[in-house]
């Protein structure tokens, strides 16, 4: 028994130390595990050496470059991958690109989005009468952006959402609409990323459409029933 075994261990009747390799042979266990055991050296038991070493290490840190940032004076570098809060893309005429299909409303896991669709005479025929995102609910997962078939909702670089009342966090069309130029970097990123494997462009949809892919025989549902 080495001297430091006499240091306060639990007073209870603990199990006897298992010798290395004494564990029963299990097929589930790896054949040659790396057995770790480390006894303290004399230097470490005397404590002074490692103590001075660790203090010296801490001391040298004082002369290193800061790794922290002086937020909020110093903002973080914004990259197009950043998920800020979702916003709506505004067309040149000031109307939203959104056609109120409701796909983002469906996919939103915390159900932060609420859309009331309305009819319009313009060529898109449908537009949101109201479009509300509750930023207190939003988890910035970007699912809405990924499913949007119109490139109408994208993640902005806005990550500081503050307010005094809960109502301040319920954003309506007026607050959500942002000109497309402001969001150009993210829109470019979306186009690049969600091209998916189509980037290679060598794959075409199966002849006869994806719903008649033979791998899915027996599992297809009629498209027009939904």
């Amino acid at each position, binding site marked *: 028994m080495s001297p430091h075994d006499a240091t306060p261990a639990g007073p209870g009747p603990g199990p006897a130390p298992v010798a290395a390799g004494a564990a*029963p*042979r*299990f*097929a*589930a*266990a790896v054949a040659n595990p790396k057995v770790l055991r480390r006894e303290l050296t004399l230097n470490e038991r005397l404590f002074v050496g490692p103590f001075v070493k660790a203090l010296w290490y801490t001391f040298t840190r004082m002369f290193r470059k800061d790794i922290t940032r002086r937020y909020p004076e110093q903002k973080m570098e914004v990259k197009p991958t950043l998920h800020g809060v979702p916003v709506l893309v505004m067309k040149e005429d000031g109307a939203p690109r959104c056609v109120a299909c409701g796909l983002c*409303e469906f996919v939103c896991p*915390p*159900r*932060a*989005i*609420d*859309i009331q669709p309305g009819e319009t005479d313009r060529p898109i025929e449908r537009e949101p009468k109201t479009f*509300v995102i*509750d930023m207190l*609910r939003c988890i910035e997962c970007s699912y809405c952006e990924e499913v949007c078939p119109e490139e109408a909702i994208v993640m902005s670089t806005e990550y500081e959402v503050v307010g005094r009342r809960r109502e301040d966090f319920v954003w309506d069309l007026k607050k959500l609409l942002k000109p497309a130029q402001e969001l150009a970097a993210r829109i470019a990123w979306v186009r690049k990323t969600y091209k998916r494997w189509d980037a290679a462009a060598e794959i075409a949809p199966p002849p006869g459409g994806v719903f008649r892919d033979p791998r899915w025989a027996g599992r297809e549902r009629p498209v027009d029933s939904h």
Partner: protein
Amino acid sequence: MTALGAEVLPSTQDGLAAFRVGRDAWPQLAQAMKRDPQLAFELLVDVAGADFPRRRPRFEVVYHLWSLTFNRLVRVKVGVPEEDPQIASVVELWGSADWHERETFDLFGIRFAGHPDLRRILLPDGYPWHPLRKDFPVEGIDNSICYVREGGVLMTRELAVDRPAGADRTPVDLSRGDPAGFSDGAPTLPEEGAK
């Protein structure tokens, strides 16, 4: 294992060996699985409850057992009827069953006979429902009431329910998710007999 009354279930996507056993034969089978050196299932990985409102028996307790000696994982299913939701505890054999069984009791109301300390583990003591049963709505039942202290008197008060935008979820529908035709081929009640 089939000698002890276990019925072999068809293989599912994960390819595990799966067995179904009656409630009465289960303690004996469990004993053999733990103690028999040919089986040697040392580690109880998981105990999961499942609720099939249109099956008889209604509940199922699914055990996943792992034999470290042979590196073999199996699934054992035991049916538990609704009228008498009780099954033998296996705490004596696997210590880890303790909290697993408390959790299953908590969330499904299945009682484990012989468990030394069967009480709720995740939900507060005295909570009246077992929420993972299919007839418990996901919104909860009692969330419109809060307890407030007014002038030193504890009162209940109705709250405006904070319903998420666009969430008009259907209430409980027991016919939903009819598990007929699950790979294990358990009999299911006909449509009219839906509880």
